[in-house]
């Protein structure tokens, strides 16, 4: 009895092995092939990082999506970069200034800025992200009305500024006065939200590289934001995407630019320290 069971078991294993071998050869050149995301990681800066092989969302997308991002001509995100470039030179507000009046050539003055956001603002006593900094400049320096979050102008300017850091490693600082915000972001990242009771970590830390229904899960990095989402056919800022994540688990999303999202932005950026800024990235 025992011997027969063992023999059946071995035959079953052999059959499965044969089926898998044939299956993988047939699928090798197909578009349905699971993205090969391994082997494209950046080593985490220290042992404290929960993911040691930090991998950009770029590697979790299909070759067609990657091709869109790799060619600056084809990448529709560049329409926002061009719009941002026009807005940069446009004088607005009572002070009669444009961004260029103080910052001159963005390629020089904004280099590295996007890679370090969110940054500690000493005067306000809190971290500030790129959208908020742009609006601070607009309302205080230019005496112009701040742009609404999610507006084409704010997203275009955020994209244009962050694009000046493209290729540079994400480098956010989480020490000193940032520490309580970092800790809050970390706590939020591991807190289960919504009716589906899922935390960011459940998908992005524990199950990246696997399918969640039809979605191939990435590590949830923010190095490419604002991102041209094929689903929305426009540039999407980070807080909007995070709202979407919480909405997807049937929770109540935090407001864009809220304390919770600033803390999360800081923590998520930290998780991706070392990744190249890819703005404007192309994702699903």
């Amino acid at each position: 009895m025992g011997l027969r069971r063992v023999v059946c078991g071995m035959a079953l294993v052999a059959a499965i092995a044969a089926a898998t071998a044939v299956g993988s050869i047939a699928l090798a050149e197909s578009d349905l092939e699971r993205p090969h995301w391994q082997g494209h990681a950046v080593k985490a800066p220290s042992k404290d990082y929960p993911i040691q092989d930090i991998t950009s969302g770029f590697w979790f997308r299909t070759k067609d999506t990657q091709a869109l991002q790799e060619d600056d001509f084809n990448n529709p995100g560049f329409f926002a970069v061009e719009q941002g470039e026009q807005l940069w030179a446009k004088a607005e507000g009572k002070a009669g200034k444009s961004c260029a009046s103080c910052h001159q050539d963005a390629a020089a003055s904004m280099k590295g800025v996007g890679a370090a956001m969110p940054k500690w603002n000493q005067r306000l006593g809190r971290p500030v992200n790129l959208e908020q900094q742009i609006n601070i400049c607009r309302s205080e320096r230019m005496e112009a009305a701040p742009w609404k979050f999610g507006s084409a102008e704010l997203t275009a300017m955020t994209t244009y500024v962050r694009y000046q850091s493209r290729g540079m490693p994400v480098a956010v600082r989480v020490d000193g006065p940032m520490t309580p915000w970092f800790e809050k972001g970390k706590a939020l990242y591991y807190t289960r939200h919504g009716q589906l009771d899922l935390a960011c970590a459940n998908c992005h830390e524990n199950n990246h590289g696997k399918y969640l229904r039809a979605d191939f899960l990435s590590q949830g990095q923010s190095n490419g934001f604002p991102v041209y989402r094929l689903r929305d056919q426009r540039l999407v800022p980070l807080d909007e995407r995070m709202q979407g994540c919480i909405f997807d688990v049937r929770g109540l999303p935090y407001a864009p630019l809220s304390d919770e999202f600033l803390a999360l932005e800081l923590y998520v950026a930290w998780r991706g320290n070392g990744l190249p800024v890819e703005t404007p990235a192309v994702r699903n």
Partner: protein
Amino acid sequence: MAEIKPRIRLDKKDVKKGDTVEVKTLVSHDMETGLRHDADGKLVPRLIINKFTCELNGKLVFECDPESAVSANPYFQFKFKPEESGTLKFTWIDDAGTTTEATETIKVS
């Protein structure tokens, strides 16, 4: 605010007669399918690019009539053999009649 210009790329602009030129174009357009509802529940009317043409010195080289499934910010790519030097004119027309144009020069020897 100025319009975002369409992008045109020719793989060669100076060719010999009989050579094939590959043209790539990308234009910015939101494309409303006519099937979406706005926040008040009203149907957002269709507004898509319904014609794309390319002419060399006024003679038609390429024409495309997209339907409502066309992607936003559409990318059109085609190859052709230019017969003469001159101006390539690209035109995109949408349902509202808004016309976007761009030109490129090409030299054939």
